[in-house]
């Protein structure tokens, strides 16, 4: 017992000694960005931002969690940024719950969500789904319960009076189902969004949505904790300028999807697009 006591105290002393050398996490050079692992476009953009800011002498920490958890954490003034807010449709409800967040920039303009089928399936509109419910086994393969897209899909099932059930598990399970179905040339309908690498990897199409349940084009935006702009005016400027066009986004997503080391790939991408990055970093 005696030795244990000494061991315990020595560990405590070491812990407190290092405690003071660690520095405060709200230190102006430490930036935390929340990220939803599995959202290809969010992962890609976050890693690009990290690569750029690390070069500028910041220390970016990526925190992986789910959307609501990240928003709650930003609302508490803890996490600095989140680059994956879809507006005006998908995340409007979630954002309304957290009034203490600041919009600081738009990263991408042509986001789209909806129901997706492989190209070989001869169905083009959500209204035709009921005629083919047996081929689709009356199932729409969804993503996580609680996602904005999941909610919209439930709404679509009601409004189009679809004789279908949405099956929810996770994004990656949805993609796995889709890949398996395409390999076997089976019929499948899933909930999907663009930009996403699955559109470059597989031949897919969105189903027409005449009732506009899934809205029109969506923007992907960066949100920050309330006083971020005050604490880091130069970074708020940078994020207001950061913007990907379709070509850059598709190129980045493809490279990220094929890469084993996302940080290294993002670094390479930043080096290849130095002109674009210079525009973003421009102080004027």
């Amino acid at each position, binding site marked *: 017992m005696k030795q244990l006591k000494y061991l315990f105290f020595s560990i405590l002393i070491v812990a407190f000694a290092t405690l003071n050398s660690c520095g405060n996490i709200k230190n102006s050079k430490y930036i935390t960005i929340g990220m939803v692992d599995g959202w290809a476009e969010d992962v890609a953009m976050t890693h690009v931002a990290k690569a750029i800011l690390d070069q500028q002498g910041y220390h970016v920490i990526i925190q992986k969690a789910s959307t609501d958890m990240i928003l709650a954490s930003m609302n508490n003034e*803890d996490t600095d940024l989140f680059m994956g807010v879809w507006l005006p449709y998908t995340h409007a409800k979630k954002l309304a719950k957290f009034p203490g967040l600041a919009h600081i920039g738009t990263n991408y303009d042509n986001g789209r969500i909806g129901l997706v089928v492989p190209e070989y399936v001869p169905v083009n509109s959500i209204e035709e789904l009921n005629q083919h419910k047996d081929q689709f086994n009356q199932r729409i393969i969804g993503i996580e319960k609680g996602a904005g897209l999941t909610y919209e899909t439930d709404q679509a099932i009601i409004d189009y009076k679809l004789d279908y059930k949405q099956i929810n598990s996770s994004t990656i399970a949805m993609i796995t189902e889709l890949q398996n179905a395409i390999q076997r040339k089976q019929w499948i309908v899933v909930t999907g969004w663009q930009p996403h690498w699955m559109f470059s990897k597989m031949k897919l199409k969105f189903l027409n949505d005449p009732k506009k349940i899934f809205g029109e084009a969506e923007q992907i935006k960066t949100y920050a904790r309330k006083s971020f702009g005050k604490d880091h005016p130069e970074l708020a400027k940078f994020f207001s300028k950061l913007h990907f066009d379709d070509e850059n986004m598709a190129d980045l997503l493809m490279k990220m999807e094929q890469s084993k080391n996302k940080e290294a790939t993002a670094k390479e991408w930043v080096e290849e697009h130095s002109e674009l990055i210079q525009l973003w970093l421009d102080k004027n």
Partner: protein
Amino acid sequence: MNKTIDIGQYVETAINWLTENGKPVFDVIKHIGNSSIMGIEWVLVNTPFYVIILFFTLLALWKAGKGIAVVTAAGLSLIFLMGLWKETMETLALIFVSTLTALIISIPLGILAAKSTIADKIIRPLLDLMQTMPAFVYLIPAVLFFSIGKVPGAFATIIFAMPPAVRLTTLGIEAVPKDIVEAARAFGATNRQILFKVELPLAMKTILTGINQTILLSLSMVVIAGMIAAGGLGEKVLEGINNLDIGLGFESGLSVVILAIILDRITQGFVKKKQ
């Protein structure tokens, strides 16, 4: 579904009230927790890997015999060679702090439950609740109180891992033969002396088993804590799952298993030595 009784609403109100009014307290806890986890992590990551492997191997040799020592050395070397050393050390730091905190809270609670019937009646249903409530549910208040990061991960882990230590402490003390306690009392021992010199030493084996269970439970919670940015192996496992990366998922999962075997055998060694 019509709701006739809305219990969730009251829970939500209570949690929201705590979030609003407890902020200063939570911030202090967050700061202390963050510094201690980061501090231990810093030590573990910056100590050369062979020193740590040697330390655990010697500990295993001393407490659990030659076979386990070989397994420890081989297992930790494998983790290092798979390139998951840093994550494993992060996980170890999180487990260390969570387990230690859980024990500081749960062993006194266990003693209290053994000594007082009223305390036992209150603590027991609480433990039932803590053990059966799905572990994911703890993540919600954890994030509301402490945001995302290591501290909410530790918080959820502590709640999840505490019950066996409490239960087994109570069990151990209740199982101390009454005549020994009577004899000690006859020799004029105070309550305090009876507790520290008679009951706790005799119950030590059962208490150590509780500690062993707490360590293993906290290890199983680490992966779930990875969902709220607690880092370490849990995050790697989830990364493997979220990117369909079978190799990474297996490697990080294997690292968790290796860590579990080593920690289990070494703590069991402490139990066996007590016989």
